[in-house]
């Protein structure tokens, strides 16, 4: 019994990481209505950036956040202003193809620079530390940190959306782009800021991923799929739903893995497909005020 409780608890905590993958995707889709196919590769690029800082300057992985987050945010802003804003006017094909091309380019550039070997960032002691909850039930300290970060990120984003002028322009642009423009909102700037924010969260997710598991240049696409599944399971437009979606994925993966190591990822994909059939609009559609 305690074993199964632990499995489910691990799955829930893993959901925190998946939610972090997903928040950036949800944000850009919600505001710009585009799916960034290179989203997963951006997560891996952030992980490599942190890895490089850790290896070269012996920096603590957590300290690397202070550099990687702003760098990624600036990259996101530039990418949106230069490439993606041009793509937005072309229906769904153009943004999909541009980000798909970007995904292939990033994977191969990472391969050239860092080779195909898988990498990891180790934090001494943290990877094995756990909190005992009694009765043989325990939860890892690191997964708990990830989960708390995910909750904090969502909480802060909700505040930004609800209380700040920036959040108001995000919501206005999301609801009706042309009316927002009439009201004096520069939508290209709003989009670029949304992408910067998305990339900042991607950076966080990438570093957390890099501290948890090994990664290689081809690891991006599967991260995109988890992110996408969490968003759809949770219901478009709902950040807390995205967290729930991440947890559904995490728990089904943990249970599947426990039954047979080959079934982990398969179970989370199957859970996603079952939910898509039963509740095509997700578990919590449009919970966020908009």
């Amino acid at each position, binding site marked *: 019994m305690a074993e199964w409780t632990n499995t489910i608890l691990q799955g829930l905590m893993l959901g925190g990481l998946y939610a972090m993958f997903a928040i950036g995707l949800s944000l850009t889709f919600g505001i710009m*209505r585009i799916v960034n196919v290179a989203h997963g590769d951006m997560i891996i690029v952030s992980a490599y950036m942190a890895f490089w800082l850790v290896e070269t300057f012996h920096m603590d992985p957590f300290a690397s956040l202070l550099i990687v987050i702003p760098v990624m945010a600036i990259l996101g802003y530039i990418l949106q202003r230069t490439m993606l804003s041009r793509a937005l006017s072309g229906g769904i094909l153009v943004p999909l193809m541009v980000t798909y091309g970007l995904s292939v*380019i990033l994977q191969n550039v990472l391969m*050239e620079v860092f080779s195909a070997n898988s990498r990891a960032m180790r934090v001494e002691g943290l990877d094995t530390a756990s909190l005992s909850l009694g009765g043989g039930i325990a939860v890892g300290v690191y997964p708990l940190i990830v989960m708390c970060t995910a909750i904090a990120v969502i909480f802060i984003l909700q505040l930004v959306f609800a209380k700040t002028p920036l959040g108001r322009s995000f919501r206005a642009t999301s609801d009706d782009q042309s009316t927002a423009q009439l009201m004096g909102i520069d939508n290209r700037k709003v989009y670029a800021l949304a992408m910067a924010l998305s990339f900042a969260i991607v950076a966080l997710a990438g570093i957390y991923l890099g501290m948890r598991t090994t990664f290689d240049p081809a690891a991006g696409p599967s991260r995109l799929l988890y992110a996408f599944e969490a968003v759809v399971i949770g219901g478009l437009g709902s950040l807390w739903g995205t967290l729930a979606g991440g947890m559904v994925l995490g728990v089904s993966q943990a249970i599947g893995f426990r039954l047979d190591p*080959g079934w982990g990822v398969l179970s989370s994909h199957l859970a996603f497909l079952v939910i*898509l059939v039963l509740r095509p609009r997700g578990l919590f559609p449009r919970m966020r005020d908009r």
Partner: protein
Amino acid sequence: MNSILQPAAAASRSYRVVRSTGASRVGGVVLLAATAALLSAPWWADRADMRFATEFLYVLALAQMWNLLAGFGGVISIGQQAFVGIGAYALVFFTMKMGLDPFASVALAGIVAAALAIPTAAIVFRLQGAYFAVGTWVVAETFRLLVANSSWLGDGSGLSITSAFRGMTPWWRDASSMWVAVVLGMGSTIALYLVLRSRFGLALKAIRDSEPASESLGVKVTATKWVMYVASALGCGCVGALAFITKLRVSPDSAFSLDWTTTMLFIVIIGGVGTIEGPIVGAVFYFGLRWLLADYGSLYLITLGLLAVIIVLRLPQGLWGYLAARFNLTFFPVQRRVVMGDEVK
């Protein structure tokens, strides 16, 4: 006001709807001549050239299948590798488990892929637009993992199908692969051309341009999209079986590889989405670039990715679309043009 309504005024400027052009008659002849030349290749070409032509033709068939979805139906899938993989494993089933002839299995593999496309469509068509695209990818991953967990199909490491060719001469194997590739590559191009000139093709293009508008004009949007999706899966399944006849070893990672879709996408985008000629031009370009950059490893894919991004942003009609507009060329016209009376030759 009155003169517009007068029939006499209209009659003086008679018009008719024209589909073929001078170039299109040339296109038809060239296509038939090329098909004949390729079919006879086993008697005059050497092995390396034939293997290259085989790959070129099946990749062209894949590109046309993606072009059918994106260019004519407005449905963008990044999960067509699902049907390539299903075709490959159907080949394993029919040859290794049932003892059938590998080349007969190609058609059966297409049918299996089409049959599995029906439940797949039921799931993925719940998603719209960009979400549909990523959804198809999830389904492809699910198929890959299901196969990789099946010890009966060789687990994650895959299996060899060499023994299916026991007693077959290499010449016959290469020649049959070539003929099947001609049927798939040329066949998909010709079939697409004929279908697009039909009522069904008109319905597809209407859906691509506006779903609500075509629905209001009586186009059965859902049914049309399903037929197109299943047809595309049929083509991809046949290609999957043929591709692995030439490779002789099937594994989940290679059969369900995203690279299949990347190839289709880049060829169609670079060549020109929504034309019959585009994928042919794109495929020539793709193989040309691969030959040029053969020694530079991942630089090839970086270049291809950059080109695709630049072309999609700067020349959304692709290389062929640009040339066609510039020189008013259409070898395989699928649109209808109105020619005024005095222009008619």
